[in-house]
């Protein structure tokens, strides 16, 4: 039935990537919203430090714990630092942590997953057991353990987050590669003289991207939450660096005493970012998938 639609309308021209991007945005209001939110985040991350009204690190004990006002939109914290400035400045770090962690797990997971999925055999079994082992760990506790063992620096938070995400990517890539291992175009690529590695890297793997984009975007959000969780336990970045998770975690102690703004605003920023990434998933997949173009 659907072939009626696609065949009776002969495609008139080849839509460019931009056209396709715009189409995806137009056709799905939620995706459009997500991309708009992403733009806000990116702007904050790129020019944030330049546009903050106050230095996010300068304390001023005289104005500690002031509620939101015209001078301090999000109020001030217990050291008298401007919460608004800190929230804005933290964007860059939080995005950097999640992007770096996700990129790392994406690369390693893809590599291992591709190997396991394409060659199979004992390599697959060994890698699978390895992923099983990681997955059998309570992941958040594993991340905590890694950060605790290596020390709480930004890099280690990134490594920990990456490690616990690797199995998800590897599994996904493995499945995607596996179903394409015997696909016609794989065989065709071999007939065309592509070595196994070329077939894997240039033909099979790129086709696993669309479902991975969903995972990537979900993970970006999850990585932020993970970092925030680590901060809550006390394994976050070093003070006085502004980071949402730490601000929420510290602010949480002030809620009951009425200083709600300390936790609320960074919490909202955190939620905003995670929300953006989570919403982005489907849209990203549609954009990356050439089959969605007509």
């Amino acid at each position, binding site marked *: 039935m659907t072939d009626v639609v696609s065949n009776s309308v002969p495609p008139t021209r080849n839509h460019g990537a931009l056209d396709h991007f715009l189409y995806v945005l137009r056709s799905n209001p939620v995706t459009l919203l997500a991309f708009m939110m992403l733009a806000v985040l990116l702007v904050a991350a790129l020019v944030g430090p330049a546009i903050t009204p106050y230095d996010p690190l*300068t*304390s001023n*004990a005289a104005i500690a714990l002031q509620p939101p006002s015209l001078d301090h939109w999000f109020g001030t914290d*217990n*050291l008298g630092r401007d919460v608004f400035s800190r929230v804005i400045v933290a964007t860059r770090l939080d995005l950097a942590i999640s992007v770096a962690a996700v990129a790392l797990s994406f690369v390693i997971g893809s590599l291992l997953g591709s190997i396991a999925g394409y060659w199979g055999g004992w390599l697959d079994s060994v890698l699978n057991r390895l992923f099983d082992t990681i997955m059998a760990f309570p992941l958040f506790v594993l991340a905590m353990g890694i950060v605790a063992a290596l020390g*709480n620096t930004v890099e280690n938070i990134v490594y920990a987050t990456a490690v616990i995400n690797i199995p998800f990517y590897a599994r996904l890539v493995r499945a995607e590669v596996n179903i394409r291992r015997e696909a016609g175009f794989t065989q065709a690529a071999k007939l065309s003289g592509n070595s196994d590695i070329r077939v894997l890297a240039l033909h099979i793997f790129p086709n696993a991207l669309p479902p991975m984009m969903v995972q990537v975007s979900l993970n970006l959000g999850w990585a932020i939450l993970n970092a925030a969780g680590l901060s809550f336990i006390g394994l976050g970045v070093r003070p*006085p660096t502004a980071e949402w998770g730490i601000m929420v975690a510290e602010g*949480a102690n002030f809620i*009951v*005493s009425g200083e709600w703004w300390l936790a609320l605003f960074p919490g909202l920023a955190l939620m905003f970012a995670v929300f953006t990434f989570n919403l982005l998933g489907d849209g990203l997949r549609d954009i990356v998938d050439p089959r969605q173009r007509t």
Partner: protein
Amino acid sequence: MLQKIQHKDAKIAIEVLTKADHREVLGKGSSPSITKGTKMTYETSRRGFLTGAGATALGVSVLPFLKVLPASAAGSDVVVAVTGQTINSLDIHRSGTNRPSYQVAVNVYDRLVSFGTKTLEDGSLSYDYSVIEPEAAESWEFADDGMAIVFKLRPEGKFQDGSPITAADVKWSFDRAVSVGGFPTVQMKAGSLEKPEQFEVVDDFTFKINLLRKSKLTLPDLAVPVPMIINSKVALEHATEDDPWATEYLHKNPAGSGAFKVAAWKPGEQLVYERNDNWTSGPVPAVKRVVLREVPSPATRRALLERGDVNMSFNMPNKDAKELSSADDITVATTPVENAIYCLCPNLSFEPFKDKKVRQAIAWSVPYEDVFQTAAYGRGAPMWGGAGSSPEEIAWPQKFPYSTDLDKAKALLEEAGLGGGFEVPLSISLSQADWMEPTALLIQENLAKIGIKATIEKIPGANWRTASLVEKRLPLHLETFGGWLNYPCYYFFWAYLEGHLFNSSNYRNEEIETLTAETLHMSVEDPEYAPKIKRMIEIAWDEVPRIALWQPALNVGTREVAGYEYWFHRQLDVRGLKKA
């Protein structure tokens, strides 16, 4: 009228339960005369309302609409307290027993002697260091040569299982404390109590300690939680070849003679004390039960106290203490911790801090007032801005002669040839981040102003002791030490002598070494004592291996409860509590 009858019924029901069911922890206490109950009363009582009558009478229909049963309704003889820490053992001698567990030794065990009680200026109660009172011992006297103390035990003294407290029990307990190693042995040593041979059973009720040296610290050291008296008969029953001191047994089963018994203990959740109605070492406490709940989140603890769900919040954050002290129905006792200072320690093993001028420069650069207000919310006592470079008195701690003066700091740094500044990590402990983090941030900011670039390094709690105290490898860090025995020389002994645990600055000064050795056991009344102490303080001020920030305070919020008493060990003594 109806309520009264109901009340009686419920009381009986709960009493029955107490006997019938040992897990029952919140009933109205037990009466040995009633041992049987009907099935019906047993079942209704399973609810175990603290309110007893009231709620039972109102019954199921009302309960769902009761938001929270307020602690105030919990009967006049039950106190509910919250704390943020876990009690992990009932035996203070066991290795691995954490600080919060020491209160079990206080409340469940007796010592030979105890300190007196005094009322502080703000009306709150505190132990009195100057008065030693009898506890399990009725009386004591020093031998003529001063090299032995003989204690007379109370003949009526009974352990909680009813057996008499004998000198053999005391000896066994003291032998245990000096033999098991770890903290108890070290603490005993502070009072020159070092080996079992010192302890002698004269007769059933006479116990003798032979002293190694005359020391003013010996008697007070017998009043700290460690030399508690254990029921050695019970303990020995459970001792094994591998475990001659019955640590496995006593870890979970207290065998003491104290004012309270442990009715229930669930590490990580709660500890319930039940009054020992036959306490022989003091007046029987006013409250029957004390429920100590462990609530890790300070915000939740605050909410519970504010909402009236608990009677007591032990060791409150300074901020909550400050804000709740103005609340009508909450009393906040803020007691400066004796013999304790929060300090900033430059480590002399690291090059720039070898120079006294650099240490002084740092001392001049700390924004004391801001730190005190921000990190301590003004709770405690300022330790800066002292008048002269020599102390007027021997009180400890007292104000250091430094205050915030960045120009002076800069000049000193110039003099030291470090006008260009340097970089240094400023280490803090993750588990004490509540005060260390804001303090460190503010110090970091001011250090930057004199050219010192400090990066804050958070060290996990598990590693903090190793890094700061054992390996002493932190170049610049925050530190806190408070001596249990309230003498300046005792503080100096731990914190200023080379190699001693709390000297995390790796400081060494020949004069202080000598002076401390001379004064440590010396009587306070000795005319030489004061001048020597003053000299020590003078050196400590000038050389500043430890830069005093402020004297911390212990905050305890109470609601409808009186009788809270501050102790040097900073643990909750529930013996004197009364429902208001």
